[in-house]
């Protein structure tokens, strides 16, 4: 029951954890078409239960906000539930609840999504409602003032009370400086968000909410002909706006780098992380993406990964350690190392041990059969991903809304399958050689370096 923020890594994990068991068939095999106003449509039939998931993704997120208006994408997401001339006074949510439906919305750096899950015979109702609010939102000054208070409470809940979240907010400015949109929090800087007005919200709405900037995804107990009929009826009549193509999200500004340290009395478990700029599906050496995914899996994913075995089991220095790789951003990707030490171990010791273990992979190469095992496991994840109705909808919606091609999801097995040992080592060397990086340290007050 919360209208949520979604971090890029969440969808990244979904988008990247996929594969089809049948040799080189697509992962989800969706049907796709485009309405005459430019709105893309993706249909993912799944008839297990008489339920349908209806989503509209806008290719606009926090990274698309005008300077000085941080938080407006997310504020607008909340305000989208207020009403239209046809469905005023929060009727949207009331109608869906009365019909037993579930709904929510989310804002990320790169996109904003609205979704409803309803019995399949209610698809037309939610489509009518969603199409209506694409262009007919009406806001009163009072609505905006009340919702702004809600958003500031959301900020309190998500950020202000959490030392780790505050540290991340500070550190991202050093990885993405000089006004780079990835350097600011999705929910916005408090001072800027507090000052947002009804006009700011409506102006972001007019600039970005249009059929030619949106993707419709329908998954579940439907057939393509029915979705086509309904989409033609409700979405196709909305005129396109001819919005300008999104500019590539790159920057040449030098990063600030260095260490960001946050000390707080409330920190009872110290932690360390290192964030390194790496290619994404759109930026940099995109051909290295699949190898980086394999690298992250074998180096730092789960209880059988190299780092976990070395630092948690064999030399018990850490309570947890791992890696993340986020390739699905519209801008640059990130490769992340993280660890939390056991009592008595300092953050410098733990980061040194992570480096040593990583270097060991460079020096010794992969073990016999290691790559095959990792790839087999990654490829099996796709079969599991088809188990949940919503997985394909989120993976494909997120990819398309970030400006990636459908093939980035559907051909993922081929890309993973083609990764060789040398590709993994090359990717690792590139990670180690990359100068654009930052370190974070979360520490208790006055207790040295985490020891």
């Amino acid at each position, binding site marked *: *029951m*919360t209208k949520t923020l979604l971090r890029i890594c969440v969808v990244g994990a979904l988008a990247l954890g996929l594969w089809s068991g049948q040799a080189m068939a697509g992962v989800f095999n969706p049907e796709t078409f485009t309405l005459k106003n430019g709105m893309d449509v993706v249909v993912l039939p*799944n*008839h*297990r*239960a*008489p*339920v349908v998931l209806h989503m509209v993704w806008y290719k606009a997120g926090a990274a698309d906000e005008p300077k000085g208006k941080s938080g407006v994408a997310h504020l607008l997401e909340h305000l989208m*539930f207020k009403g239209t001339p046809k469905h005023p006074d*929060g009727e949207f*949510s*009331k109608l869906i*609840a*009365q019909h*037993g*439906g*579930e*709904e929510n919305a989310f804002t990320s750096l790169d996109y904003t999504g609205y979704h409803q*899950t*309803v*019995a*399949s*015979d209610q698809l037309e109702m939610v489509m009518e409602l969603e199409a209506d609010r694409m262009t007919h939102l009406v806001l009163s000054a009072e609505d905006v*003032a*009340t*919702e702004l*208070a*809600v958003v*500031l*409470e*959301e900020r*309190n*809940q998500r950020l*202000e*009370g959490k030392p780790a979240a505050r540290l991340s907010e500070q550190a991202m400015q050093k990885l993405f400086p000089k006004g780079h949109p990835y350097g600011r929090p999705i929910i916005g800087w408090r001072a800027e968000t507090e000052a947002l007005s009804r006009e700011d919200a409506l102006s972001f709405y007019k600039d970005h909410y249009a059929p030619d900037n949106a993707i419709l995804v329908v998954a579940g*107990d439907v057939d393509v002909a029915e979705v086509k009929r309904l989409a033609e009826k409700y979405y196709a009549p909305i005129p396109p706006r001819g919005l300008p193509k999104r500019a590539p999200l790159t920057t040449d500004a030098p990063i600030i780098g260095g260490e960001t340290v946050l000390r707080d*009395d*409330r920190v*009872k*478990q110290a932690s360390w992380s290192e964030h390194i700029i790496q290619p994404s599906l759109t930026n940099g050496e995109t051909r290295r993406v699949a190898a980086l995914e394999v690298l992250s899996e074998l180096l730092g994913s789960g209880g*059988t990964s190299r780092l976990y*075995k070395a630092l*948690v*089991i064999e030399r*018990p220095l850490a*309570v*947890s350690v791992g890696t993340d790789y986020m390739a699905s951003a519209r801008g640059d990707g990130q490769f992340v190392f993280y660890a939390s030490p*056991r*009592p008595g171990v300092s953050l410098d010791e733990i980061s040194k041990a992570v480096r040593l273990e990583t270097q060991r992979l460079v020096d010794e190469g992969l073990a016999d059969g290691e790559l095959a*095992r990792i790839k087999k*496991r990654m490829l*099996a*994840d796709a*079969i*599991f991903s*088809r*188990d*949940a*109705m*919503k997985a394909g909808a989120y993976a494909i919606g997120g990819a398309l809304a970030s400006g990636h091609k459908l093939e980035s999801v559907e051909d993922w097995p081929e890309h993973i399958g083609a990764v060789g040992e040398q590709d993994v080592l090359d990717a690792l060397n590139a990670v180690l050689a990359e100068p654009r990086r930052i370190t974070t340290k979360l520490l208790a007050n006055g207790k040295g370096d985490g020891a």
Partner: protein
Amino acid sequence: MNWRMKKLYVILLAVALPLSLLSFQAAAVEVERVVSPQGIEAWLVQDHSNPVVSVRLAFRGGAEMDPADKAGLANLAASTMDEGAGEFDSQTFQQILADQSITLRFSASNDRFGGEVTTLTENLDQSMDLLRLALTQPRFDDEPVARLKSQLIAGIQSDSQRPGKLAYNAFFKAMFPDHGYGRDSDGTVESVTGLTQADLKAFVHTRLARGNLVVGVVGDVTPERLGALLDKTFGTLPAQPTTPRAADVVPNATGRVQVIELDVPQSTIVFGQAGLKRDDPDFYTVLVMNHILGGGSFTSRLYEEIREKRGLAYSVGSDLYPLDHAGLILGSVGTENARVAETLDVLRSEWTRMATGDVSAQELNNAKTYITGSFPLTFTSTGAIARVLVSMQINGLGIDYLDHRKAYIGAVDLAGVKRVAAEYLHVDKLDIVVVGKPAGIVPSP
């Protein structure tokens, strides 16, 4: 381990009785009762559309049974039972799971010890054999036990500064001062530090038995194959658990207000009072009543009054919290320190408005259509359906429950909602815990 041989075993005939057809509209979910040759029962929904099988199991009894000085025992057992069993040490066991893409894990809550297996069909036999080993021959070697203890202790220490955790722990401690429910099921740093391999072995042998086990299975498996697997997997468990369950308990709701000082801008508030157990005849009526008051949608009264009208909070709501030995109505809200008093005023006035029977037929109808309509929406993955099958068995709902649920909700009427609102909602007995720096809130003496 000779798990590869398992496929050659003769499959003994299982009894499969299709008993329930859940008809939403067009499609149907058919729940079958599968009874193994040895008499072990599982409920099954077949789905051969994807080569995946999800198994969920639960043993009745959970952290409530942990002795006070061994608080966190069930949780530590859940964390270590998949860290080596039979001839496989921890790393070997985990490596097999990873290489075969098998998810096998355990969990502990107040009233249950749960297990989960999710696997590709081709690895089902091996998965169930690993489950058998974990349930009956867990090793609890020194290294994994020490490692998991250090991880759990790190978690407990971090939690000690989390507003929500502090609030719930204080609430439950006050509500159940002399009962296992009053203790954090994670345990304390001291209690977890003191747990031993002997404690873990005793846990497994005295608490996990066929007599307190229920199993739900969904996916690409036939009743015949499942029946044989049930005997192989669970056949060697003891017949009955030997540790007694905790006693029934009456929540000690007195309307007290607790304040726990924490230097954060937003206060986290947990509120609640006595509710009812799952088998209470009033359950569905109270479920509908609470839905109107604070239930799970963007339309409850608490949501409307606290968030939509006044912008006091981002999240607010209340839920029924039925336990095996007691019942609660439990809710939470987070608001700026300066606005805690106003939020509590609105909360109490909504509590009172509902208690006095101010409910419309329209509200009742909307709540009923929501509760009826939203239930099938969760049936969209094999794991989610398997969880429902376990819950139906644990709560004694009957294999035809899915057919009848709509009628149970449909039978709730306005007079009933008004009656239970007056009976269950007592604003003077509404216990409140505030964690933060709330302005103008005086704790009870």
